[in-house]
Every structure is written in C-alpha cells, then in structure tokens.
C-alpha cells in the first residue's frame, strides 16, 4: 500500500478510536467493572487494527471489528488475571458474544461509565482524569501535563482509582432519581474542570490546552446525547460554548492577553454563540435553574455585546445574586465583586472582596487581580501595587503576568 493509503488507514483508525473509545470501554467494563482490562483490551485491538487494516483494508464496520478484537482480548486478559475462578461477568460477556452478531446493537454504557468516574467513593480530584482516560482514551502523560502532576504519579493514581472501581463494589449504573441531582453534579463538575484546565492552560498559545477544552466540549455533547432532558447538562454545554466562542479574541498579536472587557466582539464566533443560546433557551424551558445555567446566562449577557455594543451589568448582577445563593464559592464571590464594581461602583465591589476570608484566597489569583483593578480605580496606588504583586506572583500564564505587570505600572 502506498503512503497515502497508509495515512488514510491511520486516520480511519484514529477516527474510530476517538468516536468509539468510550463506548467500547464502557461496554466491556460494565459487567466486570474492570476498566483497566477493558482499556488494555481495546489498545490491543487498536494495535491489531494498525497491522490488519493497512493490509486488508479498513473493514466495513470498523467499530464492530474493534469490538470483536477487543472482546477476545478482554476475555483473555480477565481469564489470565482471575486464573481459577471463571467469573460470572466474563461468562456473561461470552454469552453476549454469541447472542449478539451485529455490533451495531451493542448498548451504549457511557453514561454509566461517566457516573462511575465521578462516583463519590473516588477521590474527587481523580474524577476528571478518569473521564479523560476511560471515555476519551487520553494517555496518563497528557493528563499529567494538564493537571500539573508528575506523569508517574498520575499513572499510579489512575491505576489506584481503577482498582477501586473493580474491587470497591462501585456499580455500573445510572443513579436512582433520589440521588441523581447530586451524582449528576459531580459528572458536570468533572467535565467543567477539564474545560477550565484547557481554558487556563495558555489558551490560544498552547495547543494541548486548547485540545483539552475541545475534549471537554465533546464530553458535554456526549452527556447531552445521553441525558437530553437534564437542564443543567445543557447549561454546562452552553457555558462552555460561550467561552469557546471568545477564544480567537482572547489573544492579541504576539500572544498578548486581552481581558474580556477589551476584546473585539466581532472576533467572537457567532455560530458557537448561537449554539450556546439555543441550549440555554432549551434549558430554561425546563424550569429547573442551576449553577451552570446561571453561569451560562452571565456569559450570554456578555455575548450580547457583540450585537448591542454594550454590557448590561445590572443583568449580570442579578444572575450573580442567584448564583451566589446556590454556589457561594470563592470564584463566584470574586466574579460577583467584579460585577458589583461595574454595576454600582468600585467601593461596593471592594466591600464584597473585603468580606472574603483572606486565608481562603492566599493562592487564588483572580481575587488579587480583581482587587488590584478596583484599588487602582479608587486611586489607592500603594494598596493596588501590593495586590498587583500578589496577582502577578500567582499567575502561571506568562501573558497574564505581562498584562498585569503593565497595568501595575
């Protein structure tokens, strides 16, 4: 086969892997809870595809091919690991193989897998890494970069979490109505965390950061497909799309950081804004307001500037007041203070910041950046310089650091 043929085969494998990875892992592990073996089996199948497909051509139904190869490898792996006891789940999988001739019918268990990844028995800091690995197939090293953890440590933590899933009695199931809201929150949080990391990660400059945000949006879309009636799922997707729409405007020439208020709204992506608005409208029709819908609503008001040329701060303030009632995090309170400063005045905004316990913001960069900005507006020069220093010292993104250094003067 010529070079081009090889290339298109590789692309086909990549595409199938991306689209089917989570479905195959979810399906293979849902009976046995053995996520690690499912992943190993799938990578064996992908390796086999790399040899077979260029030789024999891409099969008619690539996903079915992968499923068959992965299922065989999985049974081998599980048998190997559980030596004597031919476990019931393994036998079940064998039975299904006989019963199910067409792989197109295999059930989509990704929703169960998402709930497993964000299970309360698993350390919450591992929810997002687990999702990125098991549903999207990201490798531990890449996840480690994004989470600023050593690759070895991230690898070990992922292994530990998967062992817990297998041996800790965590069930592959969609939670009951009663506990659904709380459990769903954990799933949404984990997806949003992936987006936030991709967003902060030198967005627009560093390719890996950008991709992680895209992966998070992909996860959001998968979740919406699986739970189309949950308003907060749409709220989260709308929030991410609104932020994503502004990506081209966030950096100037030479990667200069441009704050939201100074962005050229004509550079915002209209199709993404429209899609976000659609989901937000759909969500609000369902009558259950939540944190993500409110955050998306705030972004929606900002997006309005592309049409009207101005920002309706009083509207933003109203949404923040609701948001603070249900989610009084440091981030929300800092954002609220900034909104108050715009809608009412810098003194009022500063008063909100003053009410936040200093201990809790010692490492929270946005608090210091907002504080510096408000003090500067109030012409409290030396206090402003102190706050700027804290914000600069806590900044990770060199472009943000540079921006603040210039503002500090």
């Amino acid at each position, binding site marked *: 086969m010529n070079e081009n043929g090889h290339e298109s085969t590789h692309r086909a494998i990549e595409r199938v892997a991306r689209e089917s990875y989570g479905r195959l892992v979810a399906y293979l592990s849902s009976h046995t809870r053995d996520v690690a073996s499912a992943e190993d089996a799938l990578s064996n199948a992908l390796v086999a595809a790399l040899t077979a497909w260029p030789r024999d051509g891409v099969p008619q139904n690539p996903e079915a091919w992968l499923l068959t190869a992965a299922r065989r490898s999985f049974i081998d792996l599980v048998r190997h690991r559980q030596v004597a006891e031919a476990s019931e789940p393994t036998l079940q999988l064998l039975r299904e193989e006989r019963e199910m001739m067409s792989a197109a019918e295999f059930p989509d268990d990704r929703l169960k897998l998402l709930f497993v990844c964000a299970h309360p028995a698993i350390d919450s800091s591992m929810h997002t890494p687990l999702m990125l690995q098991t549903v999207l197939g990201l490798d531990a090293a890449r996840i480690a970069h994004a989470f600023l953890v050593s690759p070895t440590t991230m690898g070990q933590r992922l292994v530990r979490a998967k062992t817990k899933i297998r041996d800790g009695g965590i069930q592959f199931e969609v939670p009951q109505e009663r506990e659904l809201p709380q459990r769903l929150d954990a799933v949404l949080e984990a997806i949003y965390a992936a987006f936030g990391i991709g967003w902060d990660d030198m967005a627009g400059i560093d390719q890996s950061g950008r991709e992680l945000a895209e992966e998070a949006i992909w996860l959001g879309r998968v979740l919406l497909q699986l739970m189309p009636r949950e308003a907060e799922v749409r709220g989260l997707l709308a929030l991410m799309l609104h932020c994503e729409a502004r990506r081209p405007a966030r950096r100037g020439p030479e990667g200069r950081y441009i704050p939201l208020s100074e962005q050229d709204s004509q550079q915002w992506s209209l199709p993404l804004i429209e899609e976000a608005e659609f989901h937000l409208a759909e969500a609000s029709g369902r009558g259950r307001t939540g944190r993500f819908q409110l955050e998306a609503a705030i972004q929606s008001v900002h997006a309005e500037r592309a049409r009207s040329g101005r920002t309706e701060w009083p509207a933003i303030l109203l949404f923040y007041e609701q948001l603070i009632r249900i989610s009084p995090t440091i981030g929300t309170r800092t954002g609220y203070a900034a909104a108050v400063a715009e809608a009412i005045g810098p003194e009022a905004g500063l008063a909100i910041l003053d009410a936040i316990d200093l201990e809790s913001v010692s490492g929270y960069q946005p608090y210091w950046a907002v504080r510096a900005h408000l003090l500067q507006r109030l012409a409290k020069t030396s206090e402003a310089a102190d706050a700027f220093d*804290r914000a600069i010292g806590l900044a990770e993104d060199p472009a943000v650091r540079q921006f603040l*250094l210039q503002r500090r003067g």
Partner: protein
Amino acid sequence: MQFALLIYEAPEAFVARKSDGTDPYTGAWRAYHKALVESGAYLAGDPLEVPETGTTVRLKEGKRRVQDGPFADTKEQLGGFIIMELPSLDAALDWAARCPASSTGAVEVRPLAPAAKHRIM
C-alpha cells in the same frame, strides 16, 4: 514536607540581573517572591552568581580535577534555589509553574532529604 525549587535560567535571564530592575522578568520575580512569602510556604532561598563564576572540583583516581565554570555545560543553568514547606508535591508543582523562570528556563522540584542529612550530623 520540604521541597527545593531548583531554578534553571536561560542566559538572557542572567543578563536581566544587570538591568535597573524595571524589566518584566525582574518585576515578575519580585511579585512571585512576595506571593510565595505571603503564602507561608517560603523557608529560604537565594540566587546564585552567574554560571561562569562557578568552579567545579572532582577527584578522579585520586587526582584533583578542577574545571572553570559549572558542572553541566547546557544552555539553561542553575540560577538559584528556593526551599519551601508545603503539604504535597502537587502544591510544590503549583509554585514551580508560577515561577517566572518556568516559561523561559525550567524549574525542577526536589524533595529535601532530611534522612540523608541526619546520617552525617
């Protein structure tokens, strides 16, 4: 736990030390140092003189070998160190990422080895 941040700096960073102190790199360091001290994690630290001022000594087969300059001949050179007290490696990595040298050079995080010190004290 105590960690050392070993700060490897590019040649330009060493040159920046000769500026009047208003350059962005020095400004970023001033702010970083302040944030680190105010967080309570900072224990000690110092910049090192430029690499050319180093003299490297080793004994090979009983013979002294003295070399002008630093031990490793690479572009980025050890430019300073900071000792911090923090609950975990994760927290130390956060401070490494915020360090102004991490975007122009590299910052290595190493736990201190108190047990090795006790063996000789």
